[in-house]
């Protein structure tokens, strides 16, 4: 464990004290992945586990923000300290974002026991910004006993909420038909509560019926203490809200608060922040290191495994004379090999044999002897046969700052 520098130690102390300015600043540090924020997140996580964290997700326009506002109001009324993390999409072009959830949360936002923070997704997949988990732990450690995470309108892949929330609520507005089809393979399976929103609209009952039907088709898991519930809610009419809150609270009682902390496999900081925080990090590192030791090219170039996880790998190397081209710069092939090593490990991490069938790379900056490079690969998509992986190659600078060197995308064919 690294030692916290003074500023961060002070901030951590402020957060634990419930100082709102310290909380706000800490969240920004997480969001920017500033040097030292990783260690601070670690020390805050040690104090987390008391809050009930509820993830709210659903297709765009499902009514997530409206429901969050209703939940916020109800919990404040019951005397809870409530923190909300609202995640909005970012522009793929400029990287900017308009964080507009405030528009609908004005009513309770001014309450002294409420803390509302928006994050932009910063291009992350999975419906969550990469700093989400650290932010949730921060709120938890600061004494908020109810935390709501509202995600970018979700589709099939936005299941990362599992690792962020103790209780997952999926909103399904009525009458979408195809919309339900589209999400049922993904997020419906992770729902603890399925809420049919806009219950004042016609066909809401029908949608609820379809969802119940769908749940009965699923294979029952006898170990599960909780059976997914389907409920009807209408936030503007405050109908079904009390029942929904009761269901969420009950789920928290049955499954326990802090369940999220036990699911390290989906640490959202994949591809950017740490991988090593997960409980089984050592197991993963050893597993991937064993593969690397059998890899002739990795041995030749001096590539070693830093961390790994399902669908993820981080490798590192220090550039020396062996890696140079005739112009005295680092050979593009060296960087490709590093990115490719991470890609190979990530794509083979699930056990099934995955063979690369295509890969591309960009080169942003020059690299010199002595530079420390890391490559982080993460899973972009994976079906039965085809997996797409992205790898970023970064140069480690002073204070652990990272400069992007290369972006790499690779596709694998998966043999069954």
């Amino acid at each position, binding site marked *: 464990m690294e030692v916290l520098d003074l*500023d961060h130690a*002070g*901030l951590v102390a*402020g957060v634990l004290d419930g100082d*709102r*300015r*310290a909380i*706000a*600043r800490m*969240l*920004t540090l997480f*969001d*920017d992945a500033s040097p030292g924020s990783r260690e601070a997140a670690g020390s805050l996580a040690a104090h987390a586990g008391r809050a009930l964290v509820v993830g709210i997700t659903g297709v765009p326009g499902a009514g997530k923000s409206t429901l969050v506002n209703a939940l916020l109001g109800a919990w404040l009324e019951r005397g809870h300290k409530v923190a909300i993390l609202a995640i909005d999409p*970012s*522009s793929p*072009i*400029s*990287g*900017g*974002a*308009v*964080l*507009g959830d*405030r*528009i609908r949360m*004005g009513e309770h*936002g*001014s309450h002294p026991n409420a*803390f*509302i*923070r*928006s994050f*932009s997704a*910063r291009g992350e997949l999975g419906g969550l910004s990469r700093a989400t988990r650290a932010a949730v732990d921060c709120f938890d450690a600061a004494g908020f006993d109810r935390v709501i995470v509202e995600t970018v309108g979700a589709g099939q892949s936005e299941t990362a909420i599992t690792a962020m929330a103790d209780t997952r609520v999926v909103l399904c507005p009525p009458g979408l038909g195809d919309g339900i089809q589209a999400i049922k393979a993904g997020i419906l399976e992770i729902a603890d509560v399925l809420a049919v929103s806009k219950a004042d609209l016609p066909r809401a009952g029908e949608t609820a019926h379809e969802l119940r039907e769908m749940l009965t088709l699923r294979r029952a898991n006898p170990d599960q203490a909780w059976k997914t519930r389907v409920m009807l809610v209408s936030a503007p009419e405050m109908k079904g809200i009390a029942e929904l809150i009761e269901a969420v609270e009950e789920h928290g009682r049955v499954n326990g608060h802090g369940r999220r902390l036990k699911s390290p496999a989906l640490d959202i900081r994949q591809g950017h922040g740490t991988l090593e925080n997960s409980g089984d990090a050592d197991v993963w590192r050893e597993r991937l290191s064993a593969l690397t030791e059998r890899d002739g090219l990795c041995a030749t170039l001096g590539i070693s495994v830093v961390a790994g996880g399902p669908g993820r790998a981080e490798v590192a190397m220090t550039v020396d004379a062996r890696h140079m081209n005739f112009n005295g710069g680092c050979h593009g092939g060296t960087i490709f090999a590093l990115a490719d090593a991470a890609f190979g490990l990530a794509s083979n991490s699930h056990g099934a044999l995955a063979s690369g069938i295509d890969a591309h790379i960009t080169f942003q900056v020059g690299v010199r002897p002595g530079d420390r490079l890391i490559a982080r690969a993460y899973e972009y998509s994976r079906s039965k046969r085809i997996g797409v992986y992205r790898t970023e190659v970064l140069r480690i600078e002073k204070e652990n700052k990272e400069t992007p060197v290369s972006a790499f995308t690779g596709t694998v064919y998966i043999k069954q």
Partner: protein
Amino acid sequence: MTAKDFRPRVLVTKIGLDGHDRGSRIVAAACRDAGMEVVYTPPWQSIPAVVKLALEEDVDVIGISSLATDHLIVPKLMAALREAGLDRVRVVVGGIVPDNEQPQLFQSGVRQIFHPGTTLDEITTQISTYASEARLAAAETGV
């Protein structure tokens, strides 16, 4: 610190009773397109609400749009920000501000006043600079 090292966080809002929000929407969109993260609110915000929001969202710059004499309550906002310990947050005003009323705004701590005719590029460039200043101040003080 430059804007390259971080994403500026900007609050675009309106205080007072003026409901003309077309300008603030345009500026919010321009800031987004310039790569900033913009917290946008509808008009008619109260000063305590703006202060709480600025604190929780840890914004670097607050842009107040004023088209109907609401700039006259900006000094009250400045005092409230100071009281909340948000001295580092830079505040700019855009809209209709008569020349003879500018000094009292600047004296209260407003950094810049954007008058009609200012280009969006100019606005976003300056906001970005103020955001860098604010971040630097945050890095120095710790909060």
